[in-house]
């Protein structure tokens, strides 16, 4: 209770890290990263053309947004991710829940879905381009293929993890099959399903950039490929940073969503 706390040992095994130490640690590692970058570029340790300084990248990012209409590229990319991700979820969540609930449905789809999971989505790019041309469709299709099979499997597994006792309890309370699936199995698995969506969102971003780098004139990836042609390494790095920030923001969005949707999970702490 006094303020003369014994000094904490930095290497204490599995003990809680305090708030202040946590913040300092998180900022510290980034400070070192940018520090090394700044020092290396300003002292001429690296080729300025290949590794531009952080200041240059920042200026380039500002220029891209203010003078070169980069925000429309960003909007196009974000739109692609969200539209295709929404389509994937619309199919994957009902199907995954059904597969996790009814072994008969699992028996039909599981062999199919697990085979598709081993086909790398980018291998479909050539055929998608031939089928859909160069518009939005091939990009959306690639993201859809890249996300859906993993999402189905994750949703199925989370649904299977719903404890049998919950289902038996509902049965003995007189619940019908319909009620059990919609009012017990789904709500019980829902928090984990949202977590699975969060994980798959990261994958959607990965496929987006692949799609835009390979065959696109719009979007963040396309901007980066244009920049490469003009040896604009600062703009390439801007693109990477913007993608990173967007990924981080969607992750935060999902965390907030999780907290809002499932207050009963947080109240424990």
């Amino acid at each position, binding site marked *: 209770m006094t303020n003369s706390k014994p000094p904490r040992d930095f290497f204490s095994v599995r003990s809680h890290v305090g708030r202040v130490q946590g913040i300092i640690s998180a900022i510290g590692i980034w400070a070192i990263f940018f520090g090394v970058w700044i020092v290396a570029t300003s002292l001429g340790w690296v080729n300025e053309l290949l590794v531009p300084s952080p200041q240059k990248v920042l200026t380039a990012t500002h220029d891209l947004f203010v003078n070169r209409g980069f925000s429309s590229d960003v909007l196009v990319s974000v739109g692609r991710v969200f539209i295709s991700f929404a389509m994937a979820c619309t199919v994957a969540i009902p199907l995954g829940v059904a597969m996790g609930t009814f072994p008969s449905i699992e028996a039909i789809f599981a062999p199919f879905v697990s085979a598709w999971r081993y086909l790398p989505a980018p291998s479909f790019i050539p055929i998608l381009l031939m089928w859909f041309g160069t518009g939005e469709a091939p990009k959306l299709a690639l993201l859809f293929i890249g996300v859906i099979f993993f999402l189905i499997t994750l949703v199925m597994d989370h649904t299977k993890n719903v*404890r049998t*006792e*919950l289902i*038996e309890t*509902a049965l*003995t*309370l007189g619940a019908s099959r319909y009620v059990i699936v919609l009012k017990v199995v789904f709500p019980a698995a829902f928090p984990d399903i949202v977590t699975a969506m969060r994980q798959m969102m990261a994958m959607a971003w990965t496929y987006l950039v692949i799609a835009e780098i390979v065959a696109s004139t719009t979007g963040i990836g396309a901007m980066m490929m244009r920049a490469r042609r003009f040896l604009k390494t600062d703009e390439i790095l801007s693109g990477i940073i913007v993608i990173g920030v967007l990924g981080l923001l969607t992750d935060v969005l999902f965390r907030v969503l999780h907290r809002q949707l499932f*207050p009963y999970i947080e109240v*424990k702490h």
Partner: protein
Amino acid sequence: MSDTLLEVREVSKTFTLGSRKTLKAVENVSFGVEQNSICVLLGPSGCGKSTVLRTATEGRVALGGKAVTGPGQDRGMVFQAYTSFDWLSVRKNVEFGMKVNNIDAAKRRERTNHFLNLVGLSKFADAYPSQLSGGMRQRVAIARTLANDPEVLLMDEPFGALDAETRWLMQELMIDVAEKTNTTMVIVTHDLEEAIFLADKIIFLSSHPGRVKEEIIPAFKAGKRIADKEHIIRMNGYSDLEEKLMRLMREEGHREN
């Protein structure tokens, strides 16, 4: 206490282990449970007590003279594992069964309040189950099952996961509930004290395979239920019965080893 409400007749259950081996878990178990009585299924672990109880939810059993098919609202079940629906408040948990069975909202509300009050959770009606202790969660499960108005309450080691003190408080609560609601109960346990305290009749099952070894009426209670545990252990006949049950338990243990 004379009309038989639940009839378990010649229940047998064989499990298949691998391709060749089978295990006879339960063989020819028969007993009856009288209306408004508490029947305890007691026996060593692995004797198939829970299996017998489950057949009461699955079938091969007659309830009020009618054969039972599949689980249903007439046989309410409380499990050892916590079965609260975490995404619903305590009140909504208790209402769940009634909602499923299309009881109108006013009656639902009234019954929910009544049974929450009965198990002492009125103050926690709007809490989430994750905010409650283990004993309170089991009380939610009991209130939820009773509110659904089952003919018989089946409990599978309901207090097995609770600490000792909570456990005997819950046992006393069950006596209180049985007295106030006249609910017929079948309770599975391997706890001798729990069996003696709760039971109007004990069905002792032997192990491997589970058979009815003995039906025991705790005669020392003279057909009455005792409301508190410190009272019952001082009664004449209590320790004799406990000794007898211990001997039965030990016999089964020896047979196994």
